[in-house]
């Protein structure tokens, strides 16, 4: 164990110090409490909350889940108790933990995003905001805020003005040119980028000809999307000088190291938590062994390694 001390797992993102680079993804760890009796939350590098919206949101009708080979579809539909309840109950509990908290913010109009983000920032209880821009803009007939870089940049610019903590923008992998999108939100004032959200997908029961999800479509997550995450993190990290949190199908310490090597400054475990709530801690252990074996003295040294090696 004496040896471990020489390996530094700490990473720093936008001035926030994480004791290790392993976070948990929005929507896959509730607001922490659900897993408090299963895992020592303080061992995580950080936690990204379930999306918070201005009003309570009932979410989509069930069924909301469908398992696919090496993946799953979900159509939860942002179910949450709304900003007021989050500020009164969830966030005070979370912020009492010695753990950096990214509060994930979603909305159905620019105004909703702005109000929620500014209240979260003002509360002083969050370390950073993660803006989930993969939501339909109801005022514009439901086109997604992430549908084109101008739309996304416009939103980020408005949110930026009211937020005093680091602002991360979470991008969807279903995007014509991810680099153009990342550049647009960076220019609009984003401090960091989260990559990737689920990939829009669908499954149908051929016996009944009915879609598997009541919402018809959902988001694909899990190992099936991991190589897509690797590519998009690679492209964005190469083009931009902003911190990136990498996520998408992390299933082992190898997948976590891989995302860091293509440019993620930290990584987040999502769907894997459902079958193994302690998986992020196991991955930290695996990463530590790897660093030891390779004679690398810090987790931060992994970042961008593939860019240096692969050119």
């Amino acid at each position, binding site marked *: 164990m004496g040896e471990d001390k020489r390996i530094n797992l700490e990473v720093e993102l936008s001035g926030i110090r994480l004791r290790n680079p392993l976070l948990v993804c929005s929507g896959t760890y509730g607001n922490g409490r659900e897993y408090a009796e299963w895992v020592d939350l303080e061992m995580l590098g950080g936690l990204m909350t379930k999306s918070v919206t201005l009003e309570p949101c009932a979410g989509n009708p*069930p069924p*909301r889940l469908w398992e696919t080979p090496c993946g799953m579809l979900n159509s939860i539909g942002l179910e949450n108790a709304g900003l007021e309840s989050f500020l009164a109950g969830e966030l005070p509990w979370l912020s009492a933990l010695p753990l950096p908290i990214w509060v994930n913010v979603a909305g159905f109009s620019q105004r909703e995003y702005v109000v929620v983000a500014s209240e979260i920032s003002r509360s002083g209880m969050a370390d950073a905001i993660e803006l989930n821009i993969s939501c339909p803009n109801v005022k514009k007939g439901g086109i997604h805020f992430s549908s084109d870089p101008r739309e996304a940049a416009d939103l980020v610019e408005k949110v930026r003005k009211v937020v005093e903590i680091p602002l991360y923008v979470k991008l969807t992998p279903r995007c014509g040119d991810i680099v153009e999108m990342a550049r647009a939100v960076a220019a609009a004032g984003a401090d960091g980028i989260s990559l990737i959200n689920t990939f829009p997908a669908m499954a149908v029961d051929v016996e009944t000809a009915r879609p598997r999800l009541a919402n018809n479509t959902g988001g694909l997550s899990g190992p099936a999307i991991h190589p897509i995450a690797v590519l998009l993190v690679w492209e964005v990290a190469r083009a931009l000088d902003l911190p990136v949190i990498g996520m998408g199908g992390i299933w082992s310490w190898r997948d976590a190291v891989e995302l860091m090597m293509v440019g993620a400054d930290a990584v987040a475990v999502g769907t894997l938590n459902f079958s*193994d709530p302690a998986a992020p801690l196991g991955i930290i252990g695996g990463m530590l062994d790897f660093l030891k074996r390779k004679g690398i003295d810090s987790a931060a040294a992994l970042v961008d390694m593939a860019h240096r090696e692969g050119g």
Partner: protein
Amino acid sequence: MPGRYKAEVVARRRFGTLVELALETGSAIDAEPGQFIHVRCDKEGLILRRPYSLSGMAGSVVNIMVREVGAGSAWLCASEIGQELDIMGPLGRGFSIDGGSRHGLVAGGTGIAPMRFLADRLRRLGLEETLYWGVEGEAEYGGLALELAKECDLLFATMDGSAGEKGNVVDMLLDAGVEGLDGIYACGPRGMLTALAESLNDETLAAMQVCMEERMACGVGACRGCVVPASPPRRGYLTVCRDGPVFRGRELDWERIRG
């Protein structure tokens, strides 16, 4: 307190399409009928756990009854004595046993699993219960009906008339009369549960508790994936894994459940 266990398969019995597994968890378990365990299936390509109702327990051993319907259950059904399973549980809210002495239990098909545990619990409490169990045909569940008949007051119905009474188990219960029952407990296919709920009046619906199923990911209330519609004025949704799987008849919106 729920926990995560490496549980060893210590007994395995087949009843037609069902396989009953006894799992040694290594520590004393405190569980209620209606609660479930979330089981990892170590089969290539499967990423989610599978929820199974407890069908019984004794000390540190819990029982489940698995029906083979897909890849995960097939893997579980094939598990052998001595094999270790990664389980989380016991999870969720179980049945609460209401006061009074007369209890009616209704199970459809595989819904028998939690009902067997409940019948056992009621019997230990010295309460009077009748278990109504309906299946498609006798052969489907091997000799399970015979075994249950030794354990409790069983009224057995088959749709094809191959054994017991021919017909539908909900009709069998309703014919016997639900008015004098202090508790009505049900588990089975959605169609059976909605048919039952819709044939009860306000008072008997209040006495009904149902054990629901829905697709699950986390099993602990974190993902909001496993919801069922809540009745007015609450509206919105309740999670099967944490708010349930057992609900009072009046907590759920049966109209939206029927769809």
